[in-house]
């Protein structure tokens, strides 16, 4: 089964779960007689979503096989040549950044993220990496916090007053 059908299957399941949630949505007593309830549109969407995914899932070669090349240039054929390890590493680095941003403060977390992801990508020129990352993080903090006036806590928790 082609990738787009698997995704259509996923959307079918999603539409059914969403439709189930909409069907069971608690309607308040005074909303009972309204022609338009909080779940009116959602139920319609669930039906539309389920029908459209079924068309892709069961449809002939029409939609699915239209072009295998992928408009954006991402192709399944080249799946093996892709740098999956690096991609996974960077996604994990982003998750780590999300979790550490508040405890470590903006500056430290950003320096670690930028440096860490460059290392994951194979950068080993430390004399270049360290200054670029430190100056980069520092100047972005300065721009956002000082120039634009959007508060970003710079320091870790133990230094915060």
């Amino acid at each position, binding site marked *: 089964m082609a990738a*787009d059908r698997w995704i259509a299957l996923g959307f079918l399941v999603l539409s059914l779960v969403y439709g189930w949630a909409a069907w069971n949505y608690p309607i308040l007593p005074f909303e009972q007689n309204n022609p338009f309830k*909080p779940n009116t549109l959602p139920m319609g969407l669930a039906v539309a979503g389920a029908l459209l995914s079924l068309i892709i899932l069961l449809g002939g070669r029409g*939609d699915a096989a239209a072009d295998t090349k*992928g408009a954006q240039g991402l192709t399944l054929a080249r799946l093996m040549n892709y740098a999956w390890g690096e991609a996974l590493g960077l996604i994990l680095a*982003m998750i780590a950044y*999300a979790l550490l941003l508040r405890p470590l403060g903006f500056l430290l977390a950003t320096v670690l993220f930028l440096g860490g992801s460059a290392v994951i990508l194979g950068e080993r020129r430390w004399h270049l990496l360290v200054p670029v990352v430190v100056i980069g993080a520092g100047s972005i903090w300065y721009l956002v916090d000082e120039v634009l006036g*959007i508060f970003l806590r710079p320091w870790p928790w133990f230094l915060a007053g």
Partner: protein
Amino acid sequence: MLDGVLAGLGTAFSFYNILMVVAGCLIGTLIGMLPGLGPMSIIAIMIPVAIQLGDPSSALIMLAGVYYGAIFGGSTSSILINAPGVAGTVATSFDGYPMAMRGEAGKALTIAAVASFAGGTVGAVLLFLFAPALSSVAVLFWSAEYFALMLVGLSAIAAFAGRGKVVKALLMTVFGLMLATVGESALFNAPRFTMGLLDLQSGFNFVTLAMALFALPEAIHLILDPSRGAAARSGGTDIKNLRITRAEARRIAPVVGRQSIQGFLIGVMPGAGATLASFLGYAVERNLAKDDERGEFGKGSIKGLAAPETANNAACTGSFVPLLTLGIPGSGTTAILLGALIALNVNPGPRLMIDRPEVFWAVIISMYLGNIVLLVLNLPLIPYIAKLLAVPRNFLIPFILFFAMAGAYIGQNNSTELLILVGLGVIATILRFADYPLPPLLIGFILGPMLENNFSRAMLNADGISFLWERPGTLALVILGIILVLLPYIGQFRAPRRAAQAD
């Protein structure tokens, strides 16, 4: 109307707002040139900054500048290294890159800039004429017609999504509408579908969604495929001479004239946009060219470069017509701009011209300013800006990822937003692999609350769904929407029959 124009002129020509246009164009060109970052991601990254500006006119003026700059930056990388940052500039590389290989990179860049300038200028004039007329029709609309109009807009976006992608685009639109129903809504008393999560109480944040749909998949693609970044270092990025001769200018003049109008008209249609305009412009001009000139197309023809460049800029301007007059975005980029406007408490639509004339006209005038800035300021700087193409991948990617996260985090100060971003970003990348178009998802998401709002009012007025066939205007629009969706299929059914007849 004249009062509004004057107020707009006053707003657009204030020192601060001119500064915003210049800054927007420069930032747009700088980032737009980097491989893998299209206008949508750049605008999404700039939105927290724009919202921070507070004043809707300045914010929109800056974002429009970023948009133009980004498209110009995309053309630059198409010409110099044959790596179009966006689909809209793919046709630019057909003739632009061969010219650069011949050592005429400077000339190609100038033609691109002049053609974009002309396309944008004609587009701005047409917008100036078109938009008020359309607005005056649109004020007559009731919520029932609005609801139907949004259905037409959404189906048109799907219909123009490309061969074999109509159902996928519709599915993505529905998914976007579903995401829009999560969280609190002005219509109802309790938040919906939050799955008990406090962070979803106020719904998904549209900047986060825009980053997840556009910036992250592009960055992940750049990581997955190292050859994408590598092209940047091997290309010929030395630019010598920016001049074009008078004879060359005379040769491209008719092309520019035709394509500015054609491009604008294509851009006005929801969903068609810059990509279609540029490819169609290229094809039309090749057919119109004389035999000896036609042979040059694809080998570095100046006409072949001017056509898509003019058309895509005129189309970008045209795409503002449905946004400003109807409040319906026709493309992913205008959807992001619409989201920014809503965040700034401006409701685009037919009332915009009446309620906030200074915003309406300032945007139109600043588009024109943006084109001038690109021509007189950015073009001479290109040889220096092009050095950015040599930034090594190891440094580029971390910063792109960081900017995407900063866009979602700054202003929210909520790190859960980052986890949502990464999650949605991974899903969006998978969708991209399977060739599901992502702009309809964002457009559905942004139009969702408005659609539901008008739907509910129409239902309350008619006490049921009967308004769909009882009001002639609504019925006509609904039928138009259905035809638009079915149109690509009618073509498909007829094609085999015609082939059979030919045999």
